[in-house]
């Protein structure tokens, strides 16, 4: 299961003009000036995987995820991610699985799996089959590397117990 495509529409700094990333399976480097929107791409990936914590998405409230150009917020933010499923790690009879999450100004979310409306619970069940979680150790936000290094021995023990 790897990420084949990611599209953002009205999510944080990404505005009305939809932006789509077509991704390869190798080493992908995202670069660009400060404030360009690089970390927002990571936030979008955690968002579409069902992340509920505003703090983890670096906002005060979830409604702040909707693009704001200074003159007003868009009606909603939408992120879609297409995962490769050729090895059928995800329990769905398809070579690709596209997950979409839409959030409105009131903070309410809608989820879709391959175009069909779904609950957040169903989405999390689907992703857990391939060990995918928005808070997994495989996703490391900006600055989080130093938190790991400053962890105290009791927290480190809990971490190992979690993984056991």
């Amino acid at each position, binding site marked *: 299961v790897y990420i084949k495509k990611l599209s953002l529409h009205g999510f944080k700094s990404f505005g009305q003009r939809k932006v789509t990333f077509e991704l390869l399976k190798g080493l992908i*480097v995202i670069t660009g000036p400060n404030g360009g929107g690089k970390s927002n791409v990571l936030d979008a990936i955690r968002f579409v995987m069902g992340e509920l914590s505003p703090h983890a998405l670096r906002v005060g409230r979830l409604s702040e995820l909707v693009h704001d150009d200074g003159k007003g917020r868009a009606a909603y933010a939408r992120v879609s991610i297409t995962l490769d499923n050729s090895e059928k790690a995800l329990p769905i009879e398809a070579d690709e699985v596209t997950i979409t999450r839409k959030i409105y100004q009131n903070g309410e979310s809608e989820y879709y799996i391959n175009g069909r409306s779904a609950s957040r619970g169903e989405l999390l069940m689907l992703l857990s089959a391939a060990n995918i979680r928005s808070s997994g150790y495989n996703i490391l936000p900006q600055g989080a590397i130093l938190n790991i290094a400053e962890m105290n021995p009791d927290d480190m023990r809990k971490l190992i117990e979690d993984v056991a």
Partner: protein
Amino acid sequence: KLRAFFTTMEKVSEKFAAYFNRLTNGVAWLRLVDETKPSDSGVEVIVQFPGKPQRSLRSVSGGERSVAAVSLLMALQGLTPADFYIFDEVDAHMDVAYTVALAELLKEMSKKTQIIIVSLKDVLAEKADQLIGVYIDRGESRIIKTKLEDVAVD
């Protein structure tokens, strides 16, 4: 439960040592803070950089901590492998030597696992199979697919 904990700790420690050695030529391992209380003692991360004495992860330099923390994270991830990694500027405090070592390791790992890394450093961009530039245009984020020579620093 205790046996599962020790097996896991052993596995993480081994993988941690392998990644750490690959990036720094040093040795590293996990150990219990208090061997006499195996069921509730904390776990300490020990690192030894080449030519230096062994130290706890909390008392080494900023760049040394980054390189050790990345190694530990990869070791933890190895136990419940997902098929992609996403790192956001983990190389911010690393010097050129460690950044090059990291770039080479990620390049090798990316043959089996998709690796997405946000970085401001050319050393990483040069190794990329795919380089994506993200920037602001008229108040909105846009992307361009680039090659390194296109984004050369003016």
